[in-house]
């Protein structure tokens, strides 16, 4: 990966380490934003022109410029609302089934009755 700082001609004059750090920082940020290189470089250059002496000043300038350009800190959907990863809620409840508290004897009687019915009695539907 090549960093923009290795190409000093890409940014305005960066003589001190702070200026170089500021240049690196804003260029990395615009690359991270994934915007078109020409537009990104222009934004970086403008922010460095405004505050070239420190990363903090340059980033403040870049943030202001991005806001002016219409960048939102939120990802928005087509309706201009903050993006959501799931559909609108359609809530209901689920109630846990009753289990684990029944005497063995009752179950055994039910089991024998059901089997007798299924094997020997009752109508079928198929």
């Amino acid at each position, binding site marked *: *990966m090549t*960093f923009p*700082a*290795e190409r000093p001609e890409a940014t305005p004059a960066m003589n001190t*380490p*702070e200026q170089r*750090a500021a240049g*690196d*920082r804003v260029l*990395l*940020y615009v*690359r*991270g*934003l*994934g915007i078109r290189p020409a537009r990104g470089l222009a934004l970086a250059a403008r922010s460095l022109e405004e505050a070239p002496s*420190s*990363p*903090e000043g340059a*980033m*403040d300038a870049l*943030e202001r410029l991005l806001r002016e350009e219409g960048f939102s*800190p*939120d*990802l*928005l*959907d087509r309706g201009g609302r*903050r*993006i*959501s*990863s*799931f*559909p609108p809620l*359609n*809530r*209901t409840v*689920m*109630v*846990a*089934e*009753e*289990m*684990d*508290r*029944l005497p*063995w004897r*009752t*179950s*055994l009687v*039910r*089991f024998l009755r*059901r*089997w007798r*019915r*299924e*094997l020997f009695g*009752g*109508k*079928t*539907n*198929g």
Partner: protein
Amino acid sequence: MADGGPVPAWRRTGSRRRLLLLFIVLIPTIISSNTMARLLPDRGSILLDTFLVAVFTTLFAWISVGFWTSIAGLVILLTKKDAYRVSRACDGLDLSIADRSARTAILIPIYNEEVKRVIAGLRTTYHSVRETGSLEWFDFFLLSDTTDPDVWVEEEEAWHRFCIEESAFGRVFYRKRTSNTKRKSGNVADFCRRWGKSYRYMAVFDADSIMTGETLVRLVQIMEARPDIGILQTPPKAVNRETLIARVQQFANHVYGPLLAAGLHFWQLGDAQYCGHNALIRVEPFMKHCELPRLPGKGPLSGDILSHDYVESALMCRAGYGIWLTYDLKGSWEETPPTLIDELKRDRRWCQGNLQHTRLLFTRGFFPAHRALFINGILSYGSALLWLIFLTINSAQAISEVLFEPVYMPILRKFLPELPVWRPHWAISLLGSTTLLLFLPKFLGAFPILLADFKARLYGGKIRLFLSILLEVVLSMILTPIRMVFHSLFVVSTLLGKSVGWGTQSRDDRGTTWREALRAHWWGSLLGIGWGAVVYWITPSFFWWISPITFSLALSAPISVFTGRAAVGRLFRKAGLFLIPEEVELPPPLRALEDNLSRPDPFFPFPFSRKKGFLRAVVDPLVHSLHTSLLLRFRRGAPSRERARDRIVEKALACGPDSLTRKERMALLRAPHHLRELHRKVWRLGDEKAAARWGLVPPEKK
């Protein structure tokens, strides 16, 4: 089916078939147990002999069920006559869903999984459904219970990228739960409570599941035609692994699986079991009847129900809906654990879950078939302990025969001595019948391939198919003693109150290192060496009978390493052994999965791994923006919590991201305001060293 209503025809047939199964299992079991009892040398220890016979009886009955299931499956597959085949409902239908309201949610619950694999699987199924032309009936939900902050952010980013690439916003959704209550079943229930009402069906996947669009549409068609069905389970085929043990499992799944699936269908019909994934569920009755309670009390057999699928199917049946196995539907795949240790880790969890079912055996309203399934699940692990006890008692008896004088006159008033009578033909018959029950189903599995489908070529040819079965038998004989001691340990430790955690299953072919193998198997090896040495020292003639078990245990670490190697698995594949059709002719969905897995990652400008999700959520402007936007809750927390988060931000700025614990990272990821503050401050760091910790300095300058 409410009590007193008409009994479905299949239910009566099912009851008769199960009665038949009971007879054909019980009668040979009684005869063999009687033979076993007569074979035991009478040393006056009636209690020990009775116990030995009881254990033998249980184990013999257990393996008989598997044998008769395979026979029933073979008959169905060869004759192709099955009046109750559930897929009849979609015979002759084209690939479309008539009712527009029959919407299906495809649920992919995930927990710290390899994100690339999950998304590749999602993309494969998504494309396949789209190709059927029925995409508008299906929505996809990634339901995350992930606890790793890096994986959480990676999941979000992957979901977002997927939606952009496939234009799938509004069709593919992502939901991250804050708490992991009730694990996977809780995750699915959480979906049901929030969005269940919007869907008629839900297809539950595992993280590694693949299902074709055609299969999903067919499942919906069957459910539409049969409103009495609550759950439709497909038999997923195991694929995609390369280690030896996984390839052997895949082979067994392909050769013996169809027989067992058809056989199970024969006995179970509409009382089948839900396996927890690769199944279609009718949402409304599921929501009404299948919410699981916490089992009251303390200890490992209480709390959340771990093996939830068995219980959910029992509850669904109790509510009057059938659970059917579509044994003849294709296009459903899963992946197996790649190593023996991964398999045992999974078994540890399943063991505790299955033993919990002892508390549910007599729950009111459950159908006998489901109680039998509970017993079957319990015996899956309990049988290992019984077998270990059986072998231990056998060894103890062999040793006692050497150490103690035989008693020929157990009752002094008798005039004649009781001489031990050795009946070798009985012993051989017993051994033969047991071997037949164990191994014949494996060879029967080849019959449908050789006779009905003429697909032996897809298994490497007839000779290689036969050789592979033989080798699979040998390998399972080597692995079974190792599984036996581990499963016995799991049963005992569960009953003694040791609970299990919720580990992520490894889903790659990285193999087992020697260190991992020795750490896992040292005690098994010592047991095998000790057992073998004692028996050999006292009764060398008996040693050779027990040697397959003791050798296997003694060598368990190298066996674990060897069988977990992908290179060994590939070597066998090169030799045409353990081949499965998917390895010979890769089906289009699996080819698509491979292609999706090898998709290049998009451009990433930062000098750290893109897998460092937390770092990306702080630094990467797009990921940060996505993460904070998705949190939605921009309300401030309680003052004490806010102060705690302030301190985490200060710590992060002063000492860098590596200084934060997982808990602190999760706390920050859940706090969008603090994350935004941290993002702003990190990008404004003037100190080069501090900025380097956040990946904001080119590597050459560090």
